């Protein structure tokens, strides 16, 4: 008796072959593991690559090149990635310069130029030169430029512009009430300091759950100054942080979380004016609920 089995066996064999082929191609011998792109790096190496881009940017002031390099990492939001990494690095406390570089690059990207660099200024007329970066070979990087770096010093001969009578911080938080806090403070002026304390306000804001030292650094015309180092000291401790790492709160903004019961001194780096006796103080709502207030310090560079 003849058995009629049709041609289904051909289809079965074909499917088996495909499965075998895929197993070999995907599992046994996948495509070579070389020649990957920066976007495929492990997150920790991506962070290192990003930090390297920032360090190179701070060294050269070449923003277009930094942008092209950052594009290789495939971050959805480049500025946010930089800012978050800067904050993480700052929080870890090991590499403040790396955090500053990341913050400066984030700020520069936000501003669209390299003016965020506080001490490195590219010469006015870059020289057009040939393609330099490897990434340019894939048409991802603009023509490189030669940039001469100069160290700038504050021009003390210029007459300071008049300061605004009322400081308007860029912080979006609303000062709900200003109160006289328990500690009384008398700022000490250090002669020749590049930054001067313009205002010092105790802020009661129920939206701020933690006691903060909020610092705003500005130039003489009230423009925010990113990348400015702030030094906060207390008995047995010291911390450094920089303005501009929270660009959503202002390019000249920085904050520091205080511990209740600890007395802090705050100053801008470079021998600036020291603000002593900053300590968490309590505020009270109309309902009698008590919460921590914050200090808002505005420094201006004449």
């Amino acid at each position, binding site marked *: 008796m003849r058995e009629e089995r049709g041609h289904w066996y051909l289809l079965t064999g074909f499917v088996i*072959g495909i499965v075998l082929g895929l197993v070999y191609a995907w599992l046994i011998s996948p495509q070579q593991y070389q020649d990957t792109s920066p976007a495929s790096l492990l997150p920790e190496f991506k962070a290192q690559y990003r930090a*390297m881009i920032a360090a190179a940017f701070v060294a050269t002031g070449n923003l277009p090149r930094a942008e092209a*390099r950052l594009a290789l990492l495939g971050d959805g939001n480049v500025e946010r990635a930089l800012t978050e990494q800067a904050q993480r690095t700052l929080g870890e406390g090991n590499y403040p310069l790396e955090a500053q570089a990341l913050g400066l690059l984030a700020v520069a990207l936000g501003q669209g130029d390299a003016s965020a660099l506080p001490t490195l200024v590219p010469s006015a007329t870059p020289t057009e030169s040939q393609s330099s970066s490897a990434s340019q070979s894939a048409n991802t990087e603009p023509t490189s430029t030669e940039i001469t770096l100069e160290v700038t010093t504050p021009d003390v001969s210029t007459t300071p512009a008049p300061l605004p009578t009322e400081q308007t911080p860029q912080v979006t938080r609303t000062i709900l009430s200003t109160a006289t806090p328990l500690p009384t403070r008398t700022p000490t002026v250090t002669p020749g300091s590049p930054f001067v304390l313009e205002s010092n306000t105790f802020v009661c804001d129920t939206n701020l759950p933690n006691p903060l030292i909020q610092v705003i650094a500005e130039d003489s015309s009230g423009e925010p100054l990113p990348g400015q180092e702030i030094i906060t000291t207390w008995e047995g401790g010291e911390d450094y942080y920089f303005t501009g790492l929270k660009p959503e709160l202002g390019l000249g903004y920085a904050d520091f979380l205080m511990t209740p019961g600890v007395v802090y001194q705050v100053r801008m780096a470079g021998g600036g004016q020291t603000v002593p006796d900053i300590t968490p103080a309590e505020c009270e709502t109309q309902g009698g609920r008590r919460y921590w207030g914050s200090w808002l310090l505005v420094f201006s560079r004449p």
Partner: protein
Amino acid sequence: MRRWIWFLIVVLLGVGVGLLYGWLVNPVKYVDTTPAKLRSDYQADYILMVAEAYRAEGDLDLAARRLAVLGDSPPAEIVRQAMILAAQIPYADSDQELLSQLASALQTWSPSAGGAQP
């Protein structure tokens, strides 16, 4: 017997289609790789960044640590390979000069006991 021959033929055909799809159409996409696996031009650009930062910072230990993520080769050799690629692409003269300066500095460099940040 003939049925087995046809069966083997279609199996082999299926294997071919599977390989084509798995290697060319939809190959494995690698994520979480290391800098040592980067394409050579990306590696060269990373090395150029190290050279740019080195010129400003002058910290050879730091530069060597930054280069160490690219593999076990001596830092000077890593930069030398980048210089070869930079000459082929070619990089701008100023960038090649930066690489050359870093390579020269690394020729006499030996790991120091002092730590440097990565």
